[in-house]
């Protein structure tokens, strides 16, 4: 291991972006919760000369309501805060449930939503939840801010729509709608990364589905999502046949890894079962509400 990295503590996003742009993507790195980055430094996977801590930037902290009733989750919001956020209800509860299933209390106290999605581990819990909820990611760079739908943000294994020199500043959610959001994670032991996960976000009104978002995690380079599966579930009113077909479609589209957690074939097999279970639970709640 080389000498200790120099630590910057900018107070604004603009200053952080300026410091980041001075590097080449390797020499200067952003430090959020450090749960992943510090472990990678210890393992000598990365060896930055300068770290830009995001801890002193007030704008990145906390969850607040937007003028339109939507929610803005600052990049430095810890998993623990997101897991306890009461406004993440109805269809948006998928995000709260995903946050609650990340690792263990220690990691949830450290890790941030910005760090998690920027790292884009294919087995991480936020990515499928954000895709299911159809959230947007706010990004800052030298040329200002832009927004990217979560469905386009995750690009590949550990790769996102972030260009060199850009950072995540927030996750944006539409105004919470009545409905159900659920996150189911299959893992070897509690607190482990997912073998496979299913995120479901359903918004309903007067007993009819208005919007359905379904995404599978841990089974490909990026969260698995098909417009066709969403449409089937919506038009099929979360029915059994629609759930079965959606599960089949997603399993066929999956590109799972073979790793220490499970074989690729096993992952393909559990997808339909997890999808059917999540949809059945949503259906039961929809019918009870009628």
């Amino acid at each position, binding site marked *: 291991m080389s000498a200790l990295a120099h630590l910057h503590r900018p107070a604004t996003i603009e200053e952080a972006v300026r410091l980041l742009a001075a590097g080449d993507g390797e020499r200067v790195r952003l430090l959020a919760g450090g749960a992943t980055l510090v472990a*990678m430094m210890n393992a*000598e*996977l*990365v060896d930055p000369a300068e770290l830009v801590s995001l801890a002193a930037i007030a704008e990145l902290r906390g969850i607040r309501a937007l003028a339109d009733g939507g929610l803005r989750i600052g990049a430095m919001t810890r998993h623990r805060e997101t897991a306890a956020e009461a406004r993440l209800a109805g269809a948006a509860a998928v995000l709260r449930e995903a946050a609650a299933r990340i690792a263990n209390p220690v990691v949830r106290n450290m890790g941030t939503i910005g760090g998690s999605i920027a790292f884009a581990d294919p087995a991480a819990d936020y990515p499928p939840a954000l895709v299911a909820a159809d959230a947007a990611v706010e990004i800052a760079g030298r040329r200002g801010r832009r927004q990217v739908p979560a469905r386009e943000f995750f690009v590949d*294994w*550990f790769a996102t729509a972030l260009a060199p020199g850009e950072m995540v500043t927030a996750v944006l959610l539409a105004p919470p709608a009545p409905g159900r959001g659920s996150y189911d994670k299959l893992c070897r032991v509690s607190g482990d990364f997912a073998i496979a996960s299913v995120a479901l976000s359903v918004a309903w009104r007067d007993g009819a589905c208005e919007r359905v978002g379904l995404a599978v995690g841990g089974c490909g380079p990026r969260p698995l999502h098909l417009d066709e599966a969403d449409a089937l579930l919506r038009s099929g009113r979360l029915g059994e046949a629609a759930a079965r077909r959606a599960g089949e479609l997603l399993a066929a589209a999956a*590109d799972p890894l073979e*790793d*220490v957690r499970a074989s690729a074939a096993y992952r393909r097999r559990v997808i339909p079962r997890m999808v059917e279970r999540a949809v059945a639970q949503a259906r039961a709640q929809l019918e009870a509400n009628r």
Partner: protein
Amino acid sequence: MRMEGTFEVGAPRERVWRCITDPTLMVACIPGCEEIAPVDARRYRARVLVEVGPVKARFNLVVEVVEELPFERVASVTRGEEGTRASILSAENMVILAEIGPALTEVRYSSDVSVTGRLAKYGLGMMKKRVDRLGVEFAERFRERIAAGATSA
């Protein structure tokens, strides 16, 4: 970790052979390859950049041709390491060319790669997916080069 694949190229076998044994053309086709220079009649030195998420690894490799049957097959071994970071890579590679038609050649490649050191800490499952994709990218670039050469010739 074994990687293998097959692709077809719309060119005569002899021409494909000349291309796969041409270092400058190979640099342009191998994803992440920054440099290839001959060391002697059987050996090349190559520098290859491998990127996985936030991790970048630059390997200094020596490729040695161990068996060559012109127009048909070439077997080589690759050995090398990352500059200062103690990841060691070794591979046994084979490329076989088969004539399918007067202007159609099948390229079959396989490589048994082993990586030890810091990069091995990354899941091997994902590495294999990455490497498989590099194979596809290589085939695309190689075909493009041959097609471009064919029109200018």
